[in-house]
């Protein structure tokens, strides 16, 4: 029997229904990225294993990094948290100074932000000294904000560890002025506990004892002995290390931005601190006595006191003229009687209130140049006096 289906119907039956449109295949890079993102964003056994390994490795790197050997070497440049981290830079410079072969005479500056701002970068002072003395000196800026006398013992002790009888001369310049009077024994001991600087030192411990305190225990393991410093600097240092981004120091960072009117509260606080502690200034002089005695145990080292620049506006506002004049006189007498240099750089540079950014910090530029020049001239005098055998 013949097929009853017509040829037209057969042809219609052959035509398949149109396929439903499916999802378009992803571009190859989209699917690759998708696969990577799934691995990166979802928890997995593999990710956990590497998490544990990475955490352990990071801790090991942290322990390796925070050792005096590492910090004084090439990797130590990653220590400072930022260009403003004066404590990190001072720690690094002191450790580095203790390790390297000394080929040049050194001028080591100790003091607060006031001294740092007055001198600016060590390179500027080095150039001025070269111009005035014809000698290449290395300037080590070991200043830190609110630097306590105890910090100074630690910094200079460690920085001069490699000073030998045949080493080139070192001049240690310590900022001294009205502000120093605020460092009573109690205040010094309070800050000594904070371990803002990553250094431990026998001299500092002895100083803490001399002030009636008890030095923090030491076991000779850097991260433990300097735990607070490591915690403060650790994360930034490791991040800088991994990203290969060392910070560049800005020494004169305290006069950046717009000049603002002085704060009455701050002025009163500073003035009150100076007035309260002026009668007890023997404590500050005794600290210098002990520092001089410690430095006398190292060869070719001279100690000088440099006057910390303080705005005349602050002195007038707080009526500190009499205290200022008396302290300057006593400092000069003390220095002369103890064979210590006293360089009244601020007075000699004839700075006026207009030369200051605020009460404690001079402006960047020609004001600093004047102070550097006076400092360099004093150094010339010191060298000339020593050459002629007259001592300080």
């Amino acid at each position, binding site marked *: 029997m013949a097929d009853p289906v017509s040829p037209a119907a057969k042809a219609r039956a052959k035509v398949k229904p149109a396929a439903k449109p499916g999802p378009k295949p992803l571009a190859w890079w989209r699917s690759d990225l998708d*696969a990577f993102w799934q691995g990166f964003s979802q928890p997995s056994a593999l990710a956990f294993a590497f998490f544990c390994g990475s955490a352990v490795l990071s801790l090991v790197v942290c322990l390796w990094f925070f050792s005096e050997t590492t910090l004084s070497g090439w990797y130590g440049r990653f220590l400072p*948290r930022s260009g403003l981290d004066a404590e990190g830079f001072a720690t690094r410079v002191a450790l580095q100074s203790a390790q390297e072969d000394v080929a040049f005479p050194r001028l080591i500056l100790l003091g607060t932000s006031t001294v740092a701002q007055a001198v600016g970068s060590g390179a500027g002072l080095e150039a001025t000294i070269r111009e005035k003395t014809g000698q290449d000196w290395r300037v080590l800026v070991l200043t830190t904000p609110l630097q306590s006398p105890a910090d100074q013992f630690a910094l200079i002790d460690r920085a001069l560890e490699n000073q030998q009888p045949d080493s080139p001369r070192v001049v240690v310049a310590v900022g001294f002025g009205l502000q120093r009077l605020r460092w009573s024994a109690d205040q010094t001991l309070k800050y000594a506990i904070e371990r803002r600087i990553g250094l431990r030192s026998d001299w500092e411990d002895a100083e803490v004892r001399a002030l009636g305190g008890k030095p923090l225990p030491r076991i000779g393991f850097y991260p433990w002995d300097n735990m607070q410093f490591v915690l403060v600097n650790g*994360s930034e240092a490791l991040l800088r290390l991994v990203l290969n981004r060392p910070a560049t120091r800005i020494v004169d960072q305290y006069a950046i931005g717009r000049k603002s009117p002085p704060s009455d509260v701050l002025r009163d606080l500073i003035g009150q601190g100076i007035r309260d502690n002026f009668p007890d200034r023997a404590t500050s002089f005794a600290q210098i006595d002990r520092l001089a005695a410690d430095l006398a145990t190292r060869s070719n080292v001279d100690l000088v006191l440099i006057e910390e620049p303080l705005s005349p506006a602050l002195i007038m506002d707080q009526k500190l003229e009499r205290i200022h004049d008396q302290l300057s006189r006593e400092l000069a007498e003390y220095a002369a009687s103890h064979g210590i240099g006293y360089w009244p750089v601020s007075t000699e540079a004839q700075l006026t209130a207009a030369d200051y950014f605020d009460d404690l910090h001079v402006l960047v530029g020609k004001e600093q140049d004047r102070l550097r020049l006076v400092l360099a001239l004093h150094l010339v005098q010191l060298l000339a006096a020593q050459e002629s055998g007259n001592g300080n």
Partner: protein
Amino acid sequence: MATEAPITRRQRRLRQIGAVLQGLALGFLIVLAGMELASLAGGVSPFKYQGF
């Protein structure tokens, strides 16, 4: 029930790389975060968070 499309060998490798990077990054960051939290909780320095 939806089934996942089979992935290629290359995509499997990329997923592994992603997992490795995730582990490495988190392991590193947890150490940094630990130190930050410890310094914050202990108030170890009045200077750390003052404009730095």
